[in-house]
């Protein structure tokens, strides 16, 4: 009888010493899922980085349906203009301002004929408005009913 009582006490002691453990497996599953999503969805290519102007208001357009131009202020008097979303040298539009405007018009015309609905200009914030105006006018010559959008980043 005493041994049975002792056994019961031992069982209670053993149970009490075991701390309740939380099953963290689902949390790790979700964490890995999110990690993989962000690895796939994010782009760490430094060529994509453009120092955009900040704005509170504005909409969002999908980049897939846009003809993208990148404008950087490497040279304040003659900013670099790139076709496409990255600053690859192969896509740079070179030449005189007139040749650049003609190349922009041809690029936008070709992209819009292919079904693009927007022209997205990713311009660095320090680019002089004189050059931006020149680009806007060249883009306008290449579009029919597409809208011109300027990329910005969220101002908090």
């Amino acid at each position: 009888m005493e041994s049975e009582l002792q056994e019961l006490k031992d069982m209670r002691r053993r149970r009490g010493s075991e701390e309740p453990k939380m099953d963290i497996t689902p949390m790790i599953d979700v964490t890995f899922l999110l990690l993989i999503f962000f690895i796939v969805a994010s782009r760490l290519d430094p060529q994509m980085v453009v120092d955009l102007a900040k704005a509170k208001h504005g909409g969002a357009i999908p980049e897939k349906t846009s003809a993208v131009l990148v404008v950087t202020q490497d040279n304040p008097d003659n900013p670099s203009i790139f076709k496409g979303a990255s600053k690859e040298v192969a896509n740079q539009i070179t030449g005189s301002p007139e040749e650049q405007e003609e190349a922009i018009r041809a690029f936008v015309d070709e992209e819009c004929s292919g079904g693009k609905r927007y022209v997205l200009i990713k311009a660095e914030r320090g680019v002089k408005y004189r050059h931006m105006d020149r680009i806007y006018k060249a883009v306008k010559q290449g579009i029919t009913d597409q809208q011109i959008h300027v990329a910005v980043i969220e101002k908090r």
Partner: protein
Amino acid sequence: MSESSEEKPFDLTPPKRSREDSLAGDSFAPPPLSQGEDVPSEVPMEAGAETGKKDPILRWKEEPDEADEGHAEVKLGTGKDREALELDMTPMVDVTFLLLIFFMVTASFTLLKTIEQPAPNSEEPSMTTVEEFEDNPDYVLVFIDEFNTYTVVYGDLEEEAPSEQELYVQLREAINGADVQPTKLMVKAHGDASHERVVIAMDAGTDVGLTETEVMLTEQDAL
């Protein structure tokens, strides 16, 4: 069978027996030892007997742990053994969270925030003069000079706004002091003004309720 069970063959009550009786009559219990019989000191082994090593499966029967206190309970390992077998996942989870936070912060998605740029009307110089915009109560004029300084013009109001905050203040003053609520913003930017300043002016106009925006390039140093 006891006598009572013979007299009452359908009695369902369990027979009252002592613990010793039940052990003696239990077919699964080992047979009781006779008085002269010795308990074997060693369990005979087949493979381990020659080498002198005991079979590890049988060793627990002979050498019970002190912690067992005589319980005939099979233990596969001590607590320490079990802890050693468990993989510590804490560093992996730490690294995973670190990577997750890094990618969440640095992620740039394909959906970009944009503002619509009003297309320039034509290559030719506009026939509408600045004075006409100044006199039009539907327009608030914001001039950005070559030093990126704003000047807000509306009716009799003409105030410089060197900073972005000042621009918001001046625009709100212009709208609040108006008899007719203006709805359009005309941004007149100097060629040397930065693209960022034009975007800020357009954004400020939207913020104060000027829904339509037009942008004009000028090479004049002043209004």
